[in-house]
């Protein structure tokens, strides 16, 4: 039940991020989550938006280099220990986290975490066996 994240290549240059958010704003695309990984020279912007196809088309049209990556979004109780429980599961299952970040959305006392892990199938199985819900795109208003 993957949600697709858009990863954009960023040069560490003043105004690059502003330019991207401006383009998305002009096309009424809403950001659900955002994260940046960087080295001294370049970075990767990772976003989850409400309209993945449209955002991808627009950014490609503007000459950005990007890829679509499936990620797992998990809803965790927005309370102390909510995230710890999920991370304990990952450790138990000997799974590596490539990266994680959080969604801006908070619904019904739940927060949402985005995960990219070394073995998605195994992670999904672990979550299901512990009754931890995986968020769907409908739930997050992503199409």
């Amino acid at each position, binding site marked *: 039940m993957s949600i697709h994240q858009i990863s954009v290549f*960023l*040069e560490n*240059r003043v105004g690059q991020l502003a330019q991207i958010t401006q383009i998305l704003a002009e096309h009424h695309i809403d950001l659900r989550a955002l994260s940046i990984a960087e*080295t001294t020279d370049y970075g990767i912007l990772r976003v989850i938006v409400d309209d993945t196809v449209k955002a991808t088309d627009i950014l490609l049209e503007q000459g950005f280099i990007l890829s679509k990556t499936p990620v797992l979004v998990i809803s965790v109780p927005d309370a102390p220990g909510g995230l710890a429980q999920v991370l304990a599961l990952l450790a138990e299952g000997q799974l590596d986290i490539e990266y994680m970040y959080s969604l801006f959305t908070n619904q019904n006392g739940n927060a949402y975490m985005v995960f990219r892990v070394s073995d998605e199938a195994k992670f999904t199985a672990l979550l299901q066996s512990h009754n931890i819900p995986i968020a769907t795109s409908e739930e997050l208003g992503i199409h």
Partner: protein
Amino acid sequence: MERYYQPEIECASRESILALQNERLVKQVRHVWDNVPYYRKKMEEKGVTPDDIQSVADLHKLPFLSKDDLREAYPYGLLAKPLKDCVRIQSTSGTTGKRVVAFYTQHDIDLWEDCCARAITAAGGTDEDVCQVCYGYGLFTGGPGLNGGSHKVGCLTLPMSSGNTDRQLQFMVDLQSTILCCTPSYAAYLAESIHERGLRDQIKLKAGIFGAEAWSEEMRRDIEKQLGIKAFDIYGLTETSGPGVAFECSEQTGMHINEDHFIAEIIDPNTGEVLPEGSKGELVFTSITKEAFPLLRYRTRDICVLTREKCSCGRTLVKMSKPMGRSDDMLIVKGVNVFPSQIEAVLIEQGYQANYQIIVDRINNSDTLDVLVEMTPENFSDSLGKITEMEKSLVAALKAMLGIYARVKLVAPKTIARSEGKAVRIIDKRKI
């Protein structure tokens, strides 16, 4: 008092040098015609035979040789002696990966070392001197050339090779070096290190022979002041032998070309036409004494001016100015020849497009080489680790190709400045 290593040549009359050149050129053209089919074919295509070359005045009839010819003829195509008569090779990087390999007989090495000995003597060197050679030893001609010249002069020779500054300074102090041979940027770096460590009073240097890269008059004065020495320029290229093709004297107004071994011409780089004396143009050399690798009319791509104005040092050999630029896109970085085409070949091989920019700078007297490379959709990965790996692999491949470190920076597509649709490939920020 000016010293000469071979005054009978260095101070000979123009007539006697010309007579020597005429005799040697005629002999050399015959030697090449008989032994180098590659060049013979070029002559035949131009309808020239050895009989057409009776003196230096006929030199313009001969076809040119270029770096492309060296690449095409690699490795043995321009060899004029059986390998059993050769005793050494030296090499330099060429375009798109092929190296230039030059061959030497013992006689060739002897004459090359004579040229270097003239340079050391002109810098004031005698058998009382301690000559510290910190040019690279090995395939690069700098170390072996000056090393041989230093032996001939009778200096105590310190074959240091390049790098390891601590050791350089230790020997300089402990063995009281008087002559320093290295690239000007390394000389500036050593000077700085000497000051930082407070060793200025413990060194006995009197002269430096600095070549293999461009340097300004300002840099010369700076090094001279910092080290308390007189700094001399030296010129050469692997294709003709190595350092010592031309050398500076006490007047420091240009480098005397060793005309008994090399005939120099200045041509229009576009038309190939020989230009009158005093014109600025591309320097072309004809080796008239080399046995194993005798290049006739080799285009150096260096732009300079020749002058026969009387020199106060007493030498009568023609003088060439410092090279003022290149008629191709070759860069000299840390004394190493770098062609954009070499960098391009690495990029293509690694799956990038030829959208790149080379930025050369000189920071703390040391050259830096940065290569900006545009990321491509095919190469883009969502993983930072993978991109870092790709960057590392580019750095390693460039190092293997060029022999020097280049810092690679991946940039967004279409960010490299383009003029008239063509990417601006080279930015040289060095003030030299």
